[in-house]
């Protein structure tokens, strides 16, 4: 009996010990995870206050797969181009004006062929080396050699190897032909650190692979991180030559947020401090109601048009194109679908720029006139194709809206929706592009040539997708490109605009209003139609 009892007791003790150990371990684990969790939640909440530096998060519509300033030229890439890099001049404000930037001044020769720029002496790259004329020469050569992005502005007029640097702070461009627009495109010559970039070159790629993920600029912000799928972050470059105002933004973060809702709700919640200014009307309405968001309104030079494939029958027939132009219900689209948030823009140039004829009327919605024009087109008419850009509901809605009107005048059509890169690749040939493609045309430089000239000049074919070709137009354009008489250029562009409208080369719909949503504590956003509010060095942020 005693043996049995002892065994029982021992067993009991073992069991108790085991149980105790077990409970202790479990409790410890629970307490630990709970602590970790509580800490996590507290820290997560309090970290915003703990910050001493201001951080600005911008929710960007498209992703920054490549940071190369010389191969990217679309609107979102302005974030890279104007924050990480500097040009010789810079566009600011609205209406836009060009202010000296890395260059202090320039001179032009009598014949308009030689441009000489004097560089500032106090500009430095982020690695501390000085910005010199050699860097400018390298940069323009690189742009031309890669042939992407802004290159089309220079390829025809700046022959490779002709740009020289007589001294460290003087750059001389030797143009092939006089160009009225060259100066206006100079802000797009972004300067890279030639020594650094050259050292990263592999197989004569102009360091394309390296610059896609890294930065070698002198801009107001220096790159900290780049994750192609997420975006990039940058830190204020305190030594920037332009100096800094009160409470500048110390840390910039551009994050890719493709979903509109996420952008808007994130802004309302305070996760983001800014996003693109071209949101749909309902979203802007929603943002207006949020206390911690403000909307900065600006007229822009971004026009919306339904561009036509002028080379492809039946769109090569001017009567057919006019019929199309009469069939679009401009007011209905602007007032009902866009809730009047944009302004009717009847011509190819933005209303606010010079080069528009004073008596410019454009087309208005008139189905009778449309039918009348259509009757001059030899039938039967094949179904017309639309291609809209996925994610840009204006293009989709304009297409569907127009499709409905076309049906009323007896034209059948098909709408296809593709991502913008695909639309773009289709636009590259008259055979692949759809008959009607709705898209925007933004300001890259401020001159009517950016719009009417580049969209309809035969010399720009391949770059533009209208496949419009008119010898009379081209003659005027060639003259306008070399003239340095502003009054003559105005008349020429007005004439070109009149021709394009008379030929109904596209359906011009509206010019956008920019409604830039920002966190309420962000001040001093300096909007220009070129940088679209993405040039953030001027802004300040209270924290």
């Amino acid at each position, binding site marked *: 009996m005693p043996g049995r009892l002892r065994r029982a007791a021992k067993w009991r003790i073992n069991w108790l010990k085991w149980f105790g150990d077990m409970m202790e371990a479990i409790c410890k684990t629970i307490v630990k995870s709970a602590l*970790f*969790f509580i*800490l*996590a*939640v507290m*820290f*997560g909440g309090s*970290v915003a206050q703990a910050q001493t530096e201001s*951080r600005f*998060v911008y929710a960007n519509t498209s*992703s920054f*797969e*490549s940071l190369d300033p010389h*191969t990217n030229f679309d609107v979102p890439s302005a974030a890279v181009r104007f924050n990480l890099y500097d040009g010789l001049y810079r566009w600011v404000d609205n209406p836009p004006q060009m202010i000296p930037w890395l260059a202090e001044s320039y001179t032009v020769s009598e014949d308009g062929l030689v441009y000489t720029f004097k560089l500032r002496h106090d500009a430095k790259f982020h690695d501390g080396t000085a910005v010199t004329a050699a860097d400018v020469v390298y940069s323009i050569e690189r742009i031309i050699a890669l*042939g*992407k992005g802004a*290159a*089309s502005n220079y*390829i025809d007029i700046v022959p490779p190897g002709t740009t020289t640097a007589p001294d460290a702070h003087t750059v001389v461009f030797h143009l092939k032909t006089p160009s009225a627009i060259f100066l206006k495109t100079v802000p797009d010559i972004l300067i890279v650190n030639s020594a650094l970039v050259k050292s990263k070159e592999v197989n004569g790629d102009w360091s*394309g*692979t390296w610059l*896609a*993920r890294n930065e070698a600029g002198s801009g107001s912000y220096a790159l*900290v*991180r780049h*994750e*192609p*799928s*997420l*975006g990039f*972050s940058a830190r204020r470059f305190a030594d920037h030559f332009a100096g800094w105002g009160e409470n500048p933004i110390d840390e910039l*973060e551009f*994050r*890719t*947020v*493709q*979903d509109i*809702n*996420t952008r808007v*709700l*994130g802004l309302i*919640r305070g*996760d983001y401090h800014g996003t693109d200014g071209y949101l749909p009307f309902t979203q802007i309405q929603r943002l207006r109601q949020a206390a911690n968001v403000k909307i900065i309104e600006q007229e822009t030079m971004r026009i919306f048009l339904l561009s036509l494939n002028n080379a492809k029958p039946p769109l090569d027939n001017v009567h057919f194109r006019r019929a199309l132009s009469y069939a679009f219900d401009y007011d209905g689209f602007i007032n009902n679908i866009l809730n009047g948030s944009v302004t009717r823009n009847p011509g190819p140039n933005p209303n606010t720029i010079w080069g528009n004829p004073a008596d410019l009327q454009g087309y208005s919605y008139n189905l009778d006139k449309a039918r009348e024009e259509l009757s001059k087109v030899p039938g039967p008419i094949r179904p017309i194709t639309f291609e809209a850009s*996925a994610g840009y509901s204006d293009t989709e809605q304009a297409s569907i809206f127009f499709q409905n009107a076309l049906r009323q005048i007896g034209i059948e059509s098909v709408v296809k929706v*593709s*991502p913008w*890169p*695909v639309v*773009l*690749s*289709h636009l*590259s*040939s008259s055979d*692949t592009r759809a008959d009607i493609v709705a898209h925007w045309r933004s300001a890259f430089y401020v001159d009517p040539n950016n719009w009417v000239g580049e969209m309809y000049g035969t010399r720009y074919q*391949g*770059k533009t997708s209208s496949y419009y070709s008119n010898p009379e137009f081209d003659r005027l354009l060639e003259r306008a490109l070399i003239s340095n008489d502003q009054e003559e250029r105005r008349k020429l562009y007005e004439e070109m605009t009149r021709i394009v409208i008379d030929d109904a080369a596209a359906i011009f719909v509206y010019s956008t209003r920019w409604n830039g949503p920002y966190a309420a504590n962000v001040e001093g956003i300096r909007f220009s139609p070129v940088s679209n509010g993405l040039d953030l060095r001027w802004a300040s942020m209270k924290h």
Partner: protein
Amino acid sequence: MRWLSIIGNRLIWFFPTMLGLLLIVFVLSRVVPIDPAVLVAGENASAEQIERVRGHLGLDQSLPRQFLTYLGDVSQGNFGTSVYTRQPIVTDLAIRFPATLELTFVAVIIAALIGIPAGVLCGLHRNSWLDHFLRVIAASSMATASFWLAMQLQMIFSVELAWLPLSGRSAGFIPETATGFLFLDAVLAGDVRLFASALAHVILPALTLALPAAATLVRFTRNGVIAALNSPSVSYQTAMGLPRRIIVWKYVLRLALGATVTQFGLVFGVLLAGAIVVETVFDWPGLGSYAVRSILSSDYNAVMGFTLWTGALFVLVNLLVDLLQAAIDPRGSA
């Protein structure tokens, strides 16, 4: 020896399957209506530039030759360069893979935590109201379109209640990480804030992803439990008076889970397919959103790379399932 034969069995079919997969995707990518050369050459390229690119990419060669060249490249670990990101595909995939794996992993855990207990309850209380209720829930979550569910969850938890972030993988920029797995990095670095942020961000997408998988698990576990309860061994143990709780929670459960484990390959497939849509809605920077973006922007190198990667992953997961099953079931994979 048994392990070797399991691995061998899977591997024998690995290469033919991958080859077939590649062939399908390759054929698909070459009947594409847009010219990859134009895409690569860029917007302002001239005709000669495009031709040069075409020659450079080997697009001027015959299709079988192109395929062989591609195979040669792949065998050296070179999947080509993405037209869109201008980075090697392998780099692209490697950058995004941890995000997807992390999301899928959390989703598997959620699915298992919800699905297996629910399935056991259903199996044990077959035809009770609880069983019916849980099964209706399961059928419903399988019937819900994940993109729609995602929007409703965002609506409730991010907009109305403002408890959880709307999208993305972490608040603020993801710090330079060692592993790419945020939770792991947070723990390694002792960064509580990052951990919390990662946790808050992963909940909604993982939940969206996990629900249909959980429903699948409910079904399999329920059937497994019912089959186990009806098995002669349970009948014997009952006859021998073994207490019900030991029978159920030790013997039946193990039998039922053995059946469930074999379905994890399937569950993983459900998750990976779901990730394609869920990542897109939640802006999750993983393979799924990359695949959709690549497909939509006609980036065929990327699509082929992704397909191959996924296929290999599938084989690997099935292999793991086989091994796990072998570990659980001493009889071997009969």
